[in-house]
C-alpha cells in the first residue's frame, strides 16, 4: 500500500527544485515525480501546484490530459502494447487479445499478482518488425503470443 510520507514529500520537493527555474517546468517535474514514485499521487499535485503558483485543478488537468502520467500506483512493470495500424497489419490483435487474457487485465489494468500493468501504445516506432511491445523502457519486436509468454516469464523472474 502506497503511503505519501516524509520521504515521498522530500522526493517530490527535490524534483521540483531541480526543474523550477527552467522555462515551462511542469511536464519535466511531473515526469520526474512519476520516475521517483511510479505515479503522480494527489499529495504531489498539491505540492507542485503550491510551488509553481498554479491551482491544483490546473496541475490535475495536465496530469489527466497525458496518457503517460498515472494517477494510481502501477504494477511492478508496465507493459505497453502497440495497437496502431502497422502492428495490426501483422496480426497484432492476436497478441493484444492474448495479453489481455494472460494478464487478466484490460488496458490501464494490473494483473492480480501486481506484476504487470497493461497499457495501449499508439506506435512505438518499430513498425517494420511488429507487433511491438515495450516492458518498462525495453522495446521488443515481432511479439507473437508465444514470444509474449516467453518475455513475461523472463520479466516475472527478474529481481
Amino acid at each position, binding site marked *: 500500500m502506497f503511503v505519501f510520507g516524509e520521504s515521498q514529500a522530500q522526493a517530490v520537493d527535490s524534483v521540483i527544485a531541480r526543474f523550477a527555474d*527552467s*522555462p*515551462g*517546468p*511542469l*511536464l*519535466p517535474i*511531473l*515526469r520526474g515525480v512519476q520516475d521517483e514514485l511510479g505515479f503522480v499521487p494527489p499529495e504531489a499535485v498539491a505540492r507542485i501546484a503550491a510551488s509553481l503558483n498554479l491551482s491544483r485543478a490546473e496541475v490535475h*488537468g*495536465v496530469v489527466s*490530459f*497525458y*496518457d*503517460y*502520467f498515472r494517477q494510481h500506483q502501477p504494477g511492478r512493470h508496465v507493459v*505497453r502494447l502497440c495497437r*496502431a*495500424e*502497422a*502492428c*495490426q*497489419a*501483422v496480426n497484432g490483435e492476436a497478441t493484444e487479445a492474448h495479453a489481455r487474457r494472460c494478464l487478466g487485465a484490460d488496458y490501464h489494468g494490473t494483473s492480480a499478482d501486481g506484476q504487470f500493468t497493461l497499457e495501449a*501504445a*499508439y*506506435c*512505438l*516506432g*518499430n*513498425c*517494420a*518488425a*511488429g507487433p*511491438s511491445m*515495450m516492458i518498462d*523502457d525495453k*522495446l*521488443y*519486436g*515481432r511479439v507473437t503470443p508465444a514470444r509474449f509468454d516467453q518475455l513475461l516469464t523472463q520479466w516475472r523472474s527478474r529481481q
Partner: protein
Amino acid sequence: MSVKVYISRDAAAVALGADETAHALQAAAQSRGQAIQIVRVGSRGMVWLEPLVEVEIAGERVGYGPVGAPDVDALLDSGLLNGAPHALRVGVVDQLPFIAKQERLTFARVGIIDPVDLDQYLEHGGYEGLRRALTLSGAEVVREVTDSGLRGRGGAAFPTGIKWKTVLDQQADQKYVVCNADEGDSGTFSDRMLMEGDPFTLIEGMTIAGTAVGATQGFIYLRAEYPHAAMALREAIGVARRLGSLGRNVLGSGKDFELEVRIGAGAYVCGEETSLLESLEGKRAEVRFRPPLPAVQGLFGKPTVINNVISLASLPVILQKGAAFYKDYGMGRSRGTLPIQLAGNIKHGGLVEKAFGVTLRELLYDFGGGSASGRPIRTVQVGGPLGAYIPESQFDVQLDYEAFTAIGALVGHGGIVAFDDTVDMAKMARYAMEFCAVESCGKCTPCRIGSIRGVEVMDRIMKDDERAANLKLLEDLCDTMQYGSLCGLGGMTPFPVMSALKHFPEDFNRDRG
C-alpha cells in the same frame, strides 16, 4: 590487429536482440582469443536483417543477418571474421540492391558512423554545413533554404524557407527553434532512426536554424516512447557542448545557441505544432487558434521556428553542398529526397531514402519485396493514421506532394503501411475513428464528439443496422469533421475512413454473421 565489427544500437535492432548478439560475439571471440572491436552504429534500415553484423574486410563491410546470439558460435567457426560464406551472409552491404539503389543525403551517415563520436561525424562531412552557414548572413542562409525547395517533412509540406523568413523578420528579445520529434504516426520511424543513428546531424541543423534567424535557445520535443533516442541525443548534445559547436560562441562565430531535450507524455496531438508548444510551456496540449502563427508568436509568445526532425536534419547537407545540389533531386514542386519507411505487412521493411518521384510499386516490390505473409498486398496506408488507404490500382502514383493530393491521399511523413488481402477495411475505418477519439485534445467539437459518433456509426454499419442510412450519416459526419475541426487530427481522420469506403465498399456492405 583487431577486426572491426559493426552492430546496430538502433531501437529496432535492439528490439530484435542486437545487444544480446553483441555480448555473445564479444564473449565468444574473447574465449577463442580472436581480437575484435565492436562498434555500435545506427541501423542501415534493413530491419528484416537485424540484428545485422557487419565485418570490415579490406575497407568493405560484409554483412551477416539476422544474427541471433545462438548463431554466433557457428558463425565464428565458419570464419565470420574473414567474411567467409555462411547461410546468413548477405554480401557487401553497400552493394545490396536495397542500399545501392537509394539516394541517401539526410541519412548518409546513419548506420555508418558511431552516432556519438564527433570525430567520425567530422570525418564524414559533419559541421561543414554549419561552418559555411556561419560565413553567410541570416538572410543568405534563409534564401539558400528557400532555394533548395525544402518543404516541411513532418507532413504539412510547407516551404521551410518561408517559415524561417517570417521568424528572421521579427524583432524580438528572444526567439526559439523547436524540433518536433513527436513522431506518432503509425508506420513512421525515420525521426527515431535519425536521432539514434546520427544525432549530430539534427543538432547541426538546429544550430544552423538558430544562428540564421537569431534564436539562441532550441528545444527538441521528443515523444516519451523513444528512450533510446533520448539517450543518444543527450549524449551527443553533451559532446557538442564540450567541443564548442553548441553553447556560447558556436565554433567561434560569436553567436550562441543552446539546446535542450524535452520528453513528451504520450499525446499524439503534440505532433500538431501549436499543441506541442502548449505542451512545452507545461500545459494541456490543446491546439491553438491561428493566427498568430508560431513564427510570430510561438513558444512563450516569442517568434519560433518549429520544424520536424527530418526537415532540420536535411539542412546540413543543403548548406554544405548548396541549394542547387539538393534541388536537383526530386520532381515538380517536391524537391530533394524523402526518407520513406516501409512498414506493416512487408517482407523487407525498413528505411529507404529516395528522391521524390519514386512510385509506390517500386517501393513496395523492388525495395519491399512484397508482403511478409506472401499474400497479395491489398492496400497501403501512406502518411500515418490520418493518411488515405490507397488501392493496388493506384500503386503507380509517384511520390510527390501534388500527385498524392490529386488522388486524395497524402505523403505525410513518408510512412507506408502495407496490408495483405486479409485486412478488413471497415474495421480499419472504425479504428481510424477510435484512434481520433482516444487522441483528440478535446478543444473542438467535430473532433472530440464526431470521432465517438464515428465509432458508433461504424459499429452499426458493420452490424447491418440500417446500413444505407448510416453510410450516408458517415459521409455527413466526415464532412463536418473535415471542414469543422480546428486541426488536422479531426480534419484528416475522414481521409482513411472515406478512402476505405471509396475503394473497398464491399467490406462495408459485407454480412459478418
